[in-house]
């Protein structure tokens, strides 16, 4: 563990880290791109989740929505990951040791497991409800997904407060 922390600390001395630390605009600029990307991730996932919960788009075929939206979700997720990684580089060890930051990734991991369960088990009988009300298992998947992503946003915001005195 100490070796890993040493590694993170040395990572924090990298040219990219120093650039972010010294620049007045690099950190907020990366945050802005991160916000655009996570907005698309959260928004497109929420559209799908609300469909699974039977609360919106109830007459749209699920398969059509998924086909249309999920490539944008993944594209935005990729962009958010890149920006997020560079933001972490500003203080790698500090983020790694931050409890809120860990909880954010725990929520994201659970959202990922939920997605895999839905993709490979729950949606097997998709044809029977593609144009209608989803079964209970699909509703549960939608509810778990939206709650976990709300958790991701909450703990990400809390990380801003616990990493910087006074919060930004």
């Amino acid at each position, binding site marked *: 563990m100490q070796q890993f922390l040493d590694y993170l600390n040395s990572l924090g001395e990298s040219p990219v880290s120093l650039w972010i630390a010294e620049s*007045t605009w690099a950190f907020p600029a990366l945050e802005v791109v991160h916000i655009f990307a996570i*907005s698309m*991730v959260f928004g*497109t996932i929420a559209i799908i989740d609300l469909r699974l919960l039977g609360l919106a788009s109830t007459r749209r075929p699920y398969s059509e929505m998924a086909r249309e939206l999920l490539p*944008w979700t993944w594209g935005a997720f990729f962009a958010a990951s890149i920006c997020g990684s560079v933001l972490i580089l500003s203080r790698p060890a500090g983020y790694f040791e931050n409890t809120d930051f860990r909880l954010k990734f725990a929520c994201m991991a659970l959202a990922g497991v939920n997605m895999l369960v839905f993709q490979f088990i729950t949606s097997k009988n998709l044809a029977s409800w593609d144009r209608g009300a989803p079964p209970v298992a699909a509703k549960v998947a939608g509810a778990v997904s939206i709650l976990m992503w709300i958790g991701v946003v909450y703990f990400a915001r809390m990380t801003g407060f616990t990493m910087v005195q006074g919060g930004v």
Partner: protein
Amino acid sequence: MEGFAQWLGDTSASAVVQKTLWLIPLMQTIHIICVALVFSSVVMIEFRVLGYTKSGTVAETARRFVPWIFVGVVVMALTGAVLIIGEPARSLPSFEFQMKMLFLAIALVFTIMFAHSVRRHPDAWSDSSAARTAHSTLAIVALAAWCAVVIWGRWIAYTVVH
């Protein structure tokens, strides 16, 4: 504006927001989730207008997503108001905040004009009329203005408070 911010910061309501430790992060979380919902709704309309997505008509897409924009803006106004009451000096006198509000007004005007135009000419997409160009232009300007709102909004946190 600075005088008003000073006065608001000294009210008991401001003290309550500042002393309730969980209130500001909770309000910000709701605010960010609304940013996501509003921005995604704007982009969904944009994608349909530009043909990146093809299902349903532009009018249907607008009907589906425009209400989310307005509900999201109302919730953001409420949560934003709590944040302003808590720390008026951080936002009200800030140039970034004032620019955010300016672009919010522009974004709202163009979004309302877009929604109105689509409602009046729902079939504009089936022919290549002038209404189609009008819809596209309104949607693109609205998206650009919403992007500016997000950018100025994030920069508020980096304002040097004098």
